[in-house]
């Protein structure tokens, strides 16, 4: 590791990089700022990040001089780990470390080209229906992780919150079943259909989080709930689906009903409340919680990717039926 970094300087997560073709300047997007680097500084930054994970001497990567490291720190690209708390209050963790990241995380989750494709008229009613099928499974699979989280929780007030959340959510898959049926699918086709691997993994990952730490679970849940709170983001989407692809009203109305119900329950605020009840967190625990939340963001991106590629291919069966020795 470079000598200049022995004080444990942490590189911050860069959410996006864009290069100006005219100047070669690269804009690094952090969750709270943008940093513009000229080509030489960007090369130095890449070398620095690479050197931090390299075995022994960095492989062909020139370590930036101390003044460059200082410049990166001043620009907010590096954080001195020594200045971070060793432990912190749950409410402070939520307000100061989780909540400020959430919008940038959601932007990353929805940065997949699928959304632009659908909004710009390059999608199809089939893609919309496929997305509905997967949302049906994703919502139905809440029954695989929400009660598990309550079962593994040992903190009474938190356990009660999780149980109540489950009580309010467990049957919401009916909204998506109704919407899929409005697209022309029989109720039995919806019920018997099989989720895509990444749809199933969304629930499996939540189960993994539930067995790991209730805060890891709640952070993932907060990311997922965060995707349903901004009406200004989702309303135009559903309007476009109707106007571009002839999606019937009946395949959209249940979604609005579901979103309205979620908003009424204020599920997006649940994580803050759970954090308050969990008291003091070690830095290690807080980091683990953030990492689970961020992995859920990455799950959403790859889930979207799979939905687009499966249902975007007209040769793929829809709905996806289970293997049947007689029929297959």
């Amino acid at each position: 590791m470079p000598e200049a970094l022995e004080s444990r300087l942490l590189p911050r997560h860069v959410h996006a990089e864009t290069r100006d073709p005219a100047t070669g300047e690269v804009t690094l997007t952090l969750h709270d700022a943008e940093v513009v680097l000229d080509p030489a500084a960007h090369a130095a930054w890449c070398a620095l990040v690479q050197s931090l994970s390299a075995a022994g001497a960095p492989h062909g990567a020139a370590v930036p001089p101390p003044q460059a490291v200082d410049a990166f720190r001043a620009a907010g690209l590096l954080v001195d780990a020594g200045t971070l708390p060793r432990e912190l209050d749950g409410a402070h963790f939520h307000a100061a470390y989780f909540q400020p990241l959430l919008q940038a995380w959601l932007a990353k989750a929805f940065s997949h080209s699928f959304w632009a494709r659908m909004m710009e008229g390059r999608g199809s009613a089939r893609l919309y229906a496929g997305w509905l099928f997967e949302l049906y499974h994703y919502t139905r699979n809440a029954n695989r992780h929400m009660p598990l989280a309550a079962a593994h929780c040992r903190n009474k007030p938190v356990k009660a919150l999780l149980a109540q959340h489950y009580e309010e959510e467990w049957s919401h898959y009916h909204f998506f079943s109704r919407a899929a049926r409005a697209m022309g699918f029989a109720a039995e086709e919806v019920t018997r259909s099989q989720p895509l691997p990444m749809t199933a993994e969304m629930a499996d990952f939540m189960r993994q989080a539930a067995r790991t730490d209730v805060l890891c679970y709640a952070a993932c849940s907060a990311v997922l709930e965060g995707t349903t709170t901004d009406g200004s983001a989702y309303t135009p989407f559903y309007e476009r689906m109707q106007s571009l692809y002839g999606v019937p009203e009946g395949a959209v109305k249940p979604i609005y009903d579901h979103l309205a119900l979620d908003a009424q329950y204020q599920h997006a605020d649940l994580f803050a409340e759970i954090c308050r009840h969990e008291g003091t967190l070690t830095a290690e625990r807080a980091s683990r919680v953030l990492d689970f939340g961020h992995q859920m963001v990455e799950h959403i991106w790859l889930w979207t990717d799979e939905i687009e590629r499966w249902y975007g291919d007209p040769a793929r069966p829809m709905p996806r039926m289970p293997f049947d020795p007689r029929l297959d």
Partner: protein
Amino acid sequence: MNPTSLLSDIRLKRGAALVMNDGEACVQHLGQEILLDHAGSRVLRKLSPYLDKGHDSATLAAYTGETVAAVEALARALEHTGVMTLHDTRAAPADGGMSGLEFHAYHRRYAQHWLQPVYAHPFWAKVVEGRATRAQVLGFAFEKYHYIEAAHEHMGVAAANARPELMPHLARHFIEEYRHGDIYRRGLQSLFDDAAILAAPPLPTTRALVNFLSETAAVDSFGYYAANEVLQMTENSDGGDDDGAVDAFYAGMRRHYPESAKLIEAFVIHTKLDQNLGHDGVFEQMCRDMPRLAAAEVASVMNRARGVVERLLAFMDGIDRWYEAFPQVPRRPYALGAG
């Protein structure tokens, strides 16, 4: 059902494809090709629009203008080859079950077919031809490490939840495999700091494969091993690699990505180790020891086998797609203050 029909619920198998060539019909299913003579081709061509609805023979005859006898003769012949399914109203109902050894052959036949898209995945050619990015190649090594290291998870869960008669197999399997992640880790250590390797989170698509195995292991020992056997088939040279594709892959990797030499060494060591452990015959032995499987169990286990192939494909897609869009390797976990 029409009273003149002896056969009902006539369907071409869902995975079967009908190819017409100069009036000659060919049905492709599970890698086999059934060629029909001129007369059979003519009837099948007329039947083809109706073979996914489960009609009886009289209805099909009425739709196509063929005789019931001609429809039934063709349907029986195609059912015999395995590309068609039907119900014979005079036959005793089949229970759909099979012996363990019959299941072994059945599973192998489908698994080999299902694995073809994995062998044909575009990622392999990208590496062989040098079109893969550095991040994709190193990302592949990392995800392979995560997957092999996760033997600790799914094999541990499998052993701890094993059906009594399968416990010795699953215990031995865990004990033989749990160190194998370190082989890949040593390969990665040639390029990366050990702490960075251990801290790197797997891709969600890799977790999907591991979580699927762990969840299956917790509830269905035999289904777990049947899924694991599919993965094992990809590690052995007879699993679709008769043309030396694995060697070509490593050669391409060496040529285009010279810094990956130690990674390749790790891959090869692990493949040889797995082959020397003689895992090839374990599933067959397990099947031999199984009591007769009921139809529902066959369906359930085959769904797990198909499920693991889908996740293996997602594993490959994830490497290909994610590391192309987000080329940072190794991936870093989120840490307090580094957001």
